[in-house]
């Protein structure tokens, strides 16, 4: 199979995941009658703005009501509320795919809009910023610490890593976040309690960046502690297994320097399976990121989940579920591409 076909195949299978999630969620909210609630909310919202506009032109209340009634009927028809839920499923799916996600009941964007796409678009970069920062740190830490532990099996470092990884598996990220706040923000007063910038945020760009980093420290530390354990452990195990292969012995026998053996013969070969394992851990990582945002009131989409649940906002929950699946699928795809880059076997077969 050629490279392009391989990637296309992966892309299609991930697109199927997205499609299945979308289909099932839309079907569930349709069958439970929640989509009617959401759509009615959208109709009411449109009518309210219409009323204000029309009230300026039509002075007679009778005529105004008649006009509004007409508009209401049109809206109901255009949203498909006169049809059963399964009949309007394709429309609904299309609207979500094109990011026409409806309006939120109580949550508004920072600029005051209650359109869900506006709200999410505003928070999206914050979430990605946090996630990618941690992803990079995790990657570097797991590579260096994991390899270090693998080259000294049975050492103190190695054993502490085994312990750390099994504890971090049992450690709820969000509780760790609370502990971080309690220790570093409440008792030691080193870091802020949460948020992204101080209030009011500094105007100077440099100070603003420093302020951001200051606010970033605790959430990042929390996520790294909670998720890096298993990453390091996986790296270590795979590197140890690879280091026992015959070709590594041959490389050593040739008299190659140990650094070269390690990086070119061991890690080069261990990289693809490490990457595969990272992909498998991605779902857990995504979940951890959502909860961490909620704990540190990081103004991203994870915190939005919290607010949506609080205010019982079905449309927002649906939109977030879709967007998170989208993010997950995209990151998966990026990792698949990386996999092809690091694993030459995929390219040449």
């Amino acid at each position, binding site marked *: 199979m050629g490279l392009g076909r391989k990637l296309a195949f992966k892309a299609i299978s991930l697109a199927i995941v997205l499609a299945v999630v979308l289909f099932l*969620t839309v079907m569930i909210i349709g069958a439970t009658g929640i989509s009617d609630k959401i759509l009615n909310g959208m109709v009411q919202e449109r009518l309210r703005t219409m009323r204000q506009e029309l009230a300026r032109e039509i002075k007679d209340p009778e005529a105004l009501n008649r006009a509004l009634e007409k508009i209401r009927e049109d809206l109901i028809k255009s949203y498909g509320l006169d049809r059963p839920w399964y009949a309007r499923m394709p429309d609904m799916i299309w609207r979500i795919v094109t990011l026409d996600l409806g309006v939120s009941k109580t949550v508004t964007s920072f600029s005051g809009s209650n359109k869900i796409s506006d709200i999410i678009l505003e928070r999206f970069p914050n979430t990605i910023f946090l996630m990618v920062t941690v992803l990079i740190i995790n990657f570097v830490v797991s590579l260096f610490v994991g390899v270090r532990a693998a080259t000294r099996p049975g050492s103190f470092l190695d054993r502490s890593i085994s312990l750390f990884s099994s504890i971090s*598996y049992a450690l709820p990220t969000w*509780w760790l976040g*609370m*502990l971080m706040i*309690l220790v570093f923000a409440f008792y030691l007063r080193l870091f802020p309690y949460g948020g992204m910038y101080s209030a009011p945020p500094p105007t100077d760009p440099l100070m603003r960046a420093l302020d951001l980093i200051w606010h970033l420290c605790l959430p990042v530390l929390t996520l790294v502690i909670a998720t890096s354990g298993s990453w390091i452990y996986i790296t270590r195990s795979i590197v140890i297994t690879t280091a026992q292969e015959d070709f590594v012995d041959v490389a050593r026998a040739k008299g190659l320097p140990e650094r070269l053996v390690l990086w070119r013969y061991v890690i080069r070969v261990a990289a693809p399976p490490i990457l595969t394992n990272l992909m498998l851990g991605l779902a857990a990582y995504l979940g951890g990121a959502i909860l961490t945002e909620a704990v540190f009131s990081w103004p991203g989409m994870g915190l939005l989940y*919290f607010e949506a*649940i609080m205010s019982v906002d079905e449309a927002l929950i649906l939109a977030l579920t879709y967007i998170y699946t989208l993010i*997950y699928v995209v990151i998966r795809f990026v990792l698949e591409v990386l996999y092809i880059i690091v694993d030459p076997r995929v390219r040449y077969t």
Partner: protein
Amino acid sequence: MSSRREFFSEFWASKTAKVGVLFLAIVVFFSLYTVATFPLDYGTRYWNNPKYWADNPKLAMPQWVNFFTGNNLLLHRMITISAPQKMYPSGAYYVKSYEASFDLDVDQFPTFLTLKLESVSFFSPKAPAIVFLVTRPDNRTIELSKITVEPPLSTEEPPYVRYVDEPRRLLVSGEPQLSITLSDFLLKAYNLSFEPGQVAYIGYEKVIFGEPCYGTFKPLKGKYLFTVLLYAKDARDQIGKVTIVLGGQVYGFMGTDLLGRDLAQGLLFGFPVALLIGFATSVLSTLIGAVLGIASGYVGGRLDDVIQRICDVMNNMPQLPLLIFLVFIFGNKLWIIVAVLVIFGWPSLAIVVRSMVLQAKSSSFIDAAISIGAPRWWIMARHIFPQVAPFILAQMIFFTPAAILSEAALSFLGLGDPSIPTWGQILEQGFHSGAVFLGHWWWILPPGLLIVFSAVTFVLIALGLEPVVNPRLRRWR
């Protein structure tokens, strides 16, 4: 895996397994204890019923804090009197005196003072009056409150009974008239003039239980005598039960939360719930995963394709967002949470079991079994299943902490089953009441530690099982 005995002896040989089993024994012990002593509807009847906790101090630290800090904090005290100590006629009245003493032995003020009256019964149409007094260690007496019992309606017949279902609760430190009394008291006793408003600002407890000292108040240690006087028209009139509550700064083994709930009880109740969620989820998802995995691997063909495609898709979904979505839509009931966890739990197992079955299927004794005409289900149950069983067992134990953690995470997001207290919900309430930002560590640390403890228990057992189940690992340990 030659015999079952070998299996267990090898498992038992590892230190992690021993510790894991010990931890499990602890979790099971607390669960059994809780199930045996708590009513099943504990959550709705007591935990979520603020009235039940009305007499408890709010946000009190655990009692053992005193042991570490040295500076003694006041214990919570509840004094109950069920019969009058003295009874004497006074003019037109019979006076019944209910008395109780309290020893203030630490340098702290009680956080509040409550008088609770239960089952007041009287016979004459004129309702009795009740007076609440305190005599301080310096022999000064303050009249804290006067209570008039509601007079009988014309339809009522004697004896008239009051405060049976709902006790009469009087938060003494919340009575506005008391500020005038205390302002008078300060003037008479210490020749200090404080406006009633100032007294309210200082806090009644400081005046009642303290003495002025350089402009502020310091606790007056010693014996306080509380007296509840019932002025009755009829000798048979009585108060069934008098309770005096002195709010403490420390309470019980685990302290209390913002509603005054005894955290020790909530934490105890979390044990069986965590076990239930963990076991129910892991057993069900392993069952489904194993059956579908074996079927998929052994039967093959179209069935295999369908099952594997479903597993692929399910495995590639981001779990938490969909968990949130499903539990949010279908309601936050415990069984729905378990069902959703099962739906996402089984596919990963089915994939691995399938590949193991494919390997087992190619061995010659299966061919032998087929050649003598053994039916398919027989081969699956007798020859295939025993080979993958240890692995399935290990996976089942590995699922358990994941389920406990997922439920806790959902609870933290506000999607826990409100009728059943869990550790996650206690944490969620703590977080929302600002416990983290106000340093209420006793509300945040124990529930989280218990979540970690119960999850670690199963991780340790699973780690102990690993070398037994996967012989390739034996070399490394």
